[in-house]
């Protein structure tokens, strides 16, 4: 099972003086169970691409298949099927805490399940488990107003609100933006655990190439609405032409490794994590002695 993008193009405000092509001819397969990163600088078409993944917008040409169902259904029956398929994809927008609106944390997280028309017991069960997944103590937080929480906690509540829909695929647009180092670390750990233990397929946008190397098994690089690369991050980031064309900086750890290589240290090209560099240096040091 997978999300399949077939030659997807999208044009904003078609046939007006403000017409702008945001995506052109994107084809890619995002396998269930994968951890996929999307990289590209602001204006590269990332947000537009994300919105195709749960049918918020439909391609101007081409199609998006979700577990073999076209997300743009024609006719009533097909549309119903498309809608059900799109529900498999949970969408966490940038700064998701800004979508909170209910009086209590519990009610806000219940908003999604309630829209699905589930029973009260099922809703409560889902709210509880979603909060657990996001490390929010159910008893302590359920009756608290979401607006009385800290920024990091609000974000957890917002993500729990999406998880309560029990999506197979979770799409996150810069999930750690604006958090402090501790908040970033904690949220990244939570997302990794969702993938590893709950087997949720993760698709995330990040400007942090080090995070992409650490977390993702594949990275999809966009520039000017075109697909530049779709491969494991270690492979993509070794190719300086791709980064340059996409206007991206290589991971910090890669830059450090490069600096050391230039001084004659034998550090392998795929070393793009802090710990890879540490172990390479240790190996060299011990050999030297």
């Amino acid at each position, binding site marked *: 099972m997978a999300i399949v993008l077939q030659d997807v193009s999208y044009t904003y405000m078609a046939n007006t003086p403000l017409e702008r092509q945001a995506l052109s001819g994107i084809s890619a397969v995002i396998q269930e169970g994968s951890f996929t990163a999307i990289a590209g600088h602001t204006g590269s078409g990332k947000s537009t691409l994300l919105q195709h993944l749960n049918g918020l917008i439909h391609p101007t040409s081409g199609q998006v298949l979700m577990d073999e169902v076209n997300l743009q259904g024609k006719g009533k029956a097909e549309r119903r099927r498309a809608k059900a398929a799109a529900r498999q994809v949970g969408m966490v927008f940038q700064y998701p805490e*800004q*979508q909170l609106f209910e009086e209590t944390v519990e009610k806000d997280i219940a908003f999604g399940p309630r829209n699905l028309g589930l029973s009260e017991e099922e809703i409560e069960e889902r709210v509880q488990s979603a909060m657990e997944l996001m490390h929010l103590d159910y008893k302590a937080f359920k009756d608290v107003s979401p607006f009385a929480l800290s920024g990091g906690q609000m974000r957890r509540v917002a993500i729990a609100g*999406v998880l309560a829909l029990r999506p197979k695929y979770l799409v996150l647009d810069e999930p750690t933006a604006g958090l402090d180092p501790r908040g970033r670390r904690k949220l990244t750990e939570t997302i990794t655990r969702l993938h590893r233990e709950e087997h949720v397929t993760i698709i995330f946008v990040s400007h942090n190439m080090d995070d992409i190397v650490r977390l993702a098994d594949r990275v999809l690089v966009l520039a000017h609405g075109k697909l530049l690369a779709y491969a494991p991050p270690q492979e993509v980031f070794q190719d300086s032409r791709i980064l340059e064309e996409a206007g991206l900086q290589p991971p910090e750890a890669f830059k450090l490794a490069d600096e050391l290589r230039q001084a004659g240290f034998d550090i392998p090209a795929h070393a793009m994590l802090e710990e890879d560099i540490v172990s390479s240096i240790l190996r060299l040091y011990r050999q030297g002695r």
Partner: protein
Amino acid sequence: MLSDITIGQFFPGDTFLHRLDPRTKLIALIFLMVAIFVFHTFGVYTALTVFTLALVFASKVPFGMILRSLKPLLWILLFTFFIHVFSTPGESLLHLWRFDATLEGIERGAFISLRLILLIVLASLLTFTTSPLKLTDAMEALLSPLKRFGVPAHELAMMMTIALRFVPTLIEETDRIMKAQESRGADFSEGSLMARIRAVIPVLVPLFLSAFRRADDLALAMEARCYHGGEGRTQMKALSFHRLDGLAFVFTALFLIILTISSGQLGGVLWG
């Protein structure tokens, strides 16, 4: 949908319409609007339409943009048209249930619709060719004689400036929040009236909260930049009338006088 709203958008350029003092444009607009309302003859409407089209052409604003500014009001236009078609007494052309479409009605409906279209096009021409800041400066200048009667001219103008500045931001924000709630299963397009009203709450609450947050931030930023009301304030681009403005005034005045005389409605204009 939301992106269709073009009223209040500035379309930068360097035509004579762009260069006119905003006060000139505002005053001329007011007079033209009055003219549109008081005159009823076919000749005057033709002249006003030609005049408006000439201005559109001179502004170099793409015709598509002008049409888009009419789009949000399409339903109101159609509604007004058909109301008049069916409610004006006269020779019946078509009988529908208890109503008659009349020739007089069509004529009247067309006139009223044209009147509305001219109003909208002229008003959007003003906003297309005038930067919002200049527009509010003009408003402030024209209102300032009323300050002595307690009208807060500066504050009103500042509110306008900020409202205009945040229109695009809030439109984007609404779009984003709607999509976020849609992704959580909210449905804005189906269900009973009550269900739809309820569906709006998850959008309105975050939108209001965000607007308040923005207002707070903005107030702080303005304070940090020494804003303390209109007292002792100067302006980088102080408004000043030029020859062009004089010409525009004379031309508009002549145009309106000719309209008045040629319409033979002189009495009507003077006596209401």
